C-alpha cells in the first residue's frame, strides 16, 4: 500500500504547510469600515428607482439631498443639506429653496439648482416604483418641469394644493430625493433612459462617499468623496460584504475580520454579549409586524370578530420568547419616534373575552386561511397565532410561500388573513396613515394594490377623510394630534392588528463609534463613524 501512504503523506504535508502559512487577520485597518450584511435585496443604485433597505443604505451615503437628517441628532427632524434655507409662499403651495454655495459633486462639477430640479423632475418622468413619493404632490411627467424648476440659485417646488410643509420636506429626505450630477448622468444616457441603466450600478452624487463597486450578492464598496462639503470622513473606505448566515457573521466579528455584523439572530446576540472587544447596539427601526383580515370574508368582516382577533394574540409571550430583543409590542400604525406616534397598547391575550365577542357575533367553528412568508420569525408568529386562535375555536390554516407568492395573493385580495411586515417609505406619518387608514375607492376595479386598506377590502369607516385632512394641516402640533386620534379609532375598528415594532440588534467591535443605523426614519450613516 505504498502509493496510498505516499499520497496520504503528501496531502497531510500540503495541509500543514498551507495552514501554517496563513496568518489570521486580527483587525481591520483604522480608516476602513467593514460590515457584514444581507445585501441581496439591492436591485439598483439609481435613487429614482431604489426602494430596498440595503440600497437605501448605499444611497444615503452617496447622495446629498435638498434637506436631510443629521445622524447625530435624528430627533431634530429634517435640516438643511444642499439647500441652505427655504421659504414657503403664503398660499402654502410653493417652497423656494436657496442652494448652498461652493458645493461640488464627486466629479468636481458644481452642484447647481439646475441639477437639483432636474434630479427631482427625472424621478417623476422615469415613473419607477418609488415615484409616488413625489407624484402624490400632483407632479406628473407632463407638468413636472413647471412644478419643479430652477431659478438662478434657487429651486422652486409648487404642489397642486396646500400640504403640510413638514410632509413635503420629509418626503424630500427619502432616497428618491437624492440630487444627481446632471452632466455626468446624461453623458451615460442610452435610448432616452436619462442614465437609468448606468446609474443602476454607478453613482453620481455629492454625498460623503462614492460607489466604487457593487457585485450583486457579494459586496458593495464605497470610498470617501474628496469633494464632499462636509470634509473627509474618518472611514475612507466602507466595504459591505454579503454574508447570509448569522453564525458566519458572528464568527467574522469575533475574529475581528469585520467591524459590524448587522444580521445576528437572538442566539448569536446572546453569544457575543459580554465578549471582550464586542458591543451590542439596540436601535428601534420603522418596520411593523402585523396581521390583518380580509373584509370580503362574511365572518371576518364582523366588528366583533375583528376585535376578538386582537385579543387572541399573545403579544407578551412572543415578545419575551422567540422575538426577544428583536421586536417590541406596538399596536399602532405609526412607529414610535414618528410625528403623532402613540404608545398605547390596550390589547393583550384574553381568550375568554375573545370567546365572548365571537359568541355575540354568532360565530362557531370558524376556519380561515392565513398567508405567511417562509421567514423564521414570521412562521413562529404564525404558529403562535395558530395556537391561540385554536383556544377560541378558530382553525387557522397556514399557507407558507415565498414573499412573492404570498404577496401576489394578498395584493389580489385573495387571502382570508395575512401575517407580515410593513416598513415606512418616507419619514412622515402620512406614509403609514396613507396606506393603513386610507382607501378612497374600495371597489375591485380600483386596483389600489399599494394600499393595505384596499388589499384587505376595508373601506376605513370614515378614516380616509381624516387622513386626507391631516396631511394638509399646517400646524405641526395639531397635525400630530390628528394622527393620534386617527390611530385611536384605527385600533378599535380596523381589521388590522398591529403587533410589534422592530428593534435592530447590531454587533460591533467596541472601537467603532458613532455608528447610527438611522432609527425608524432613515438609513445608516457611515460618515460620522470613527475607530
Amino acid at each position, binding site marked *: 500500500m505504498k502509493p496510498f501512504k505516499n499520497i496520504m503523506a503528501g496531502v497531510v504535508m500540503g495541509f500543514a504547510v498551507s495552514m501554517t502559512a496563513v496568518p489570521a487577520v486580527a483587525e481591520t485597518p483604522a480608516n476602513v469600515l467593514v460590515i457584514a450584511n444581507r445585501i441581496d435585496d439591492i436591485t439598483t443604485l439609481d435613487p429614482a428607482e431604489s426602494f430596498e433597505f440595503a440600497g437605501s443604505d448605499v444611497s444615503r451615503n452617496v447622495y446629498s439631498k435638498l434637506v436631510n437628517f443629521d445622524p447625530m441628532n435624528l430627533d431634530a427632524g429634517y435640516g438643511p443639506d444642499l439647500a441652505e434655507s427655504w421659504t414657503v409662499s403664503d398660499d402654502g403651495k410653493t417652497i423656494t429653496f436657496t442652494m448652498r454655495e461652493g458645493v461640488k459633486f464627486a466629479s468636481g462639477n458644481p452642484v447647481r439648482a439646475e441639477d437639483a430640479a432636474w434630479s427631482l423632475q427625472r424621478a417623476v418622468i422615469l415613473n419607477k416604483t418609488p415615484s409616488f413619493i413625489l407624484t402624490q404632490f400632483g407632479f406628473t411627467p407632463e407638468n413636472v418641469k413647471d412644478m419643479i424648476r430652477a431659478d438662478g440659485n434657487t429651486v422652486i417646488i409648487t404642489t397642486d394644493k396646500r400640504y403640510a410643509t413638514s410632509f413635503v420636506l420629509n418626503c424630500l429626505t427619502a432616497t428618491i430625493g437624492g440630487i444627481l450630477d446632471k452632466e455626468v448622468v446624461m453623458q451615460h444616457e442610452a435610448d432616452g433612459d436619462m442614465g437609468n*441603466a448606468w446609474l443602476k450600478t454607478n453613482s453620481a452624487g455629492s454625498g460623503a462617499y462614492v460607489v466604487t463597486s457593487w457585485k450583486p450578492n457579494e459586496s458593495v464598496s464605497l470610498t470617501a468623496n474628496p469633494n464632499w462639503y462636509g470634509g473627509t470622513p474618518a472611514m475612507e473606505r466602507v466595504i459591505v460584504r454579503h454574508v447570509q448566515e448569522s453564525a458566519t457573521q458572528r464568527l467574522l466579528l469575533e*475574529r475581528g475580520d469585520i467591524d459590524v455584523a448587522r444580521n445576528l439572530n437572538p442566539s448569536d446576540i446572546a453569544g457575543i454579549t459580554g465578549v471582550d472587544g464586542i458591543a451590542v447596539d439596540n436601535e428601534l427601526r420603522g418596520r411593523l409586524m402585523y396581521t390583518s383580515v380580509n373584509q370580503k370574508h362574511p365572518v371576518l368582516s364582523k366588528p366583533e370578530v375583528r376585535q376578538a382577533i386582537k385579543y387572541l394574540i399573545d403579544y407578551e409571550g412572543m415578545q419575551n420568547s422567540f422575538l426577544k430583543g428583536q421586536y417590541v409590542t406596538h399596536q399602532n400604525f405609526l412607529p414610535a419616534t414618528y410625528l403623532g406616534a402613540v404608545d398605547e397598547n390596550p390589547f393583550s391575550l384574553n381568550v375568554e373575552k375573545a370567546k365572548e365577542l365571537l359568541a355575540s357575533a354568532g360565530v362557531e367553528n370558524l376556519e380561515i386561511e392565513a398567508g405567511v412568508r417562509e421567514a423564521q420569525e414570521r412562521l413562529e408568529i404564525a404558529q403562535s397565532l395558530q395556537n391561540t386562535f385554536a383556544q377560541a375555536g378558530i382553525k387557522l390554516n397556514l399557507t407558507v410561500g415565498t414573499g412573492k407568492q404570498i404577496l401576489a395573493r394578498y395584493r389580489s385580495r385573495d387571502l382570508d388573513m395575512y401575517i407580515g411586515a410593513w416598513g415606512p417609505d418616507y419619514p412622515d406619518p402620512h406614509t403609514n396613515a396613507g396606506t393603513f387608514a386610507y382607501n378612497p375607492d374600495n371597489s375591485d376595479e380600483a386596483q389600489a394594490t399599494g394600499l393595505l386598506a384596499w388589499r384587505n377590502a376595508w373601506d376605513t369607516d370614515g378614516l380616509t377623510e381624516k387622513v386626507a385632512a391631516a396631511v394638509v394641516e399646517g400646524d405641526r402640533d395639531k397635525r400630530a394630534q390628528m394622527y393620534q386620534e386617527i390611530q385611536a379609532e384605527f385600533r378599535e375598528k380596523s381589521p388590522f392588528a398591529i403587533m410589534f415594532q422592530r428593534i435592530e440588534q447590531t454587533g460591533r467591535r467596541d472601537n467603532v463609534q458613532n455608528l447610527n443605523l438611522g432609527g425608524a426614519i432613515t438609513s445608516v450613516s457611515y460618515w460620522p463613524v470613527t475607530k
Partner: protein
Amino acid sequence: MAIAENKTVGRRTPPPFLRGLITAAKTVGSVAITMLGLMFVTFLIGRVMPVDPVLAVVGERASKEIYQATYEAMGLDKPLLVQFAYYLWDVLHGDFGMSLLNARPVSEDIKRVFPATLELATLGTLIGVLLGVPLGVTAAVRRGTWIDQIARFVALIGYSMPIFWLGLIGLLIFYGILGWVGGPGRLGIFYEDLVPVRTGMILVDSAIDGNWSVFRNAFSHIILPASILGYYSMAYISRMTRSFMLEQLSAEYITTARVKGLPERTVIWRHAFGNIKVQLITVIALSYANLLEGAVLTETIFSWPGIGSYITTALLSADMAAVLGGTIVVGLIFVLINIFSDLLYKFFDPRAK
C-alpha cells in the same frame, strides 16, 4: 455463402473519418435535443410557477400603471410559444437576457459565479478522489481489518451528517478558534481586485499573475469548503471503490494471478484496479457534476458566490432569466461531463472502441 458475402458488401463499413464524423454529428444532435428539451421544460416551469416576475421588478408598492407597463416591457403579454422562440433566438446568440433583479446581463453574472463553483468543485473532487480511491482500495484489500472499519465509518458519517452542520463546525474550529484558515468568502477583503480576471478562478489567475500572496490568501479561503465538499465526495467514492474492488478480488482471474506468483501490488493495482477504472470514472464524473451544480448549503455557509447560491437566490426572487441561464449552464456541464466520461471509457476499455 454467396448471399452472406453479398450482405457484407451491402453493409460495407464507412471509412474511419466518416465514422468519426457520423459519431460527432450524433453527439452534437443528441446534445442539441437534450438542451432544447431542458430549456423548454425550465422555461415552462418558470412561466407556470405561482410567482409574479413583474412584482419582482417593480416591488410590492407599485401602482397598477407601473405594473402594467413593466408587464408589457417584459413581453409577458405575448403567447408562451412566442416568448420561448424569442428566448431561444437570444440564447443562440449567447444572450441569456437581463437579470430582472440587478439589470445586468445574465451571461455576465454566470461568467462571474461559475468559475467560483468550478474552482471549488474541482478542488473538492480532487481531494475526494485522492483520498477516496486509495481508501476504498485499501479497505477492500484489507477487508474486515481496522482500516476497513475506519473507511466504512468515514463513509457513514459522510452520508449521514448534514453538510451545513459540518461546514459551521469546520468554520468554528479551523477559522474561529484555531485561525488556521481564511474565513468565509473567496478572498480576504483587502486582497480583492488585486489580480486581473482571466479565468475567474482566483487560484489560477493569481498563479498566472505570479501574485503569491493573493494565491495564499485564496487558498486559505478555499481549503476548508473544498475539504468539506471533498469529504462528502470521498465518502461516496471510497464506498463505491471498495465495493467494485471486492467484486474483482473475489474473481477467479485474481486467484489465478496470485497462484502464478505475481507480486500482490501488481495483482491489486494492475489487474483488479485496472478492471474497475471504467466504473470509477462514472462515479467520479457523477460526483464532480453534482458539485458543479453548486453546493448551495456550502456556498451559503461560506458566503461563496457560486452558481448554486446564484440560482437559488434568483429562484426565490422570481428572476427567471437568471434561473434559466443558470440551469442551461448546469445542464450543459452535465452533458459535457457525460460525453467526456464516454470518451474516457473508450480510452480505458478496449471493448468500447
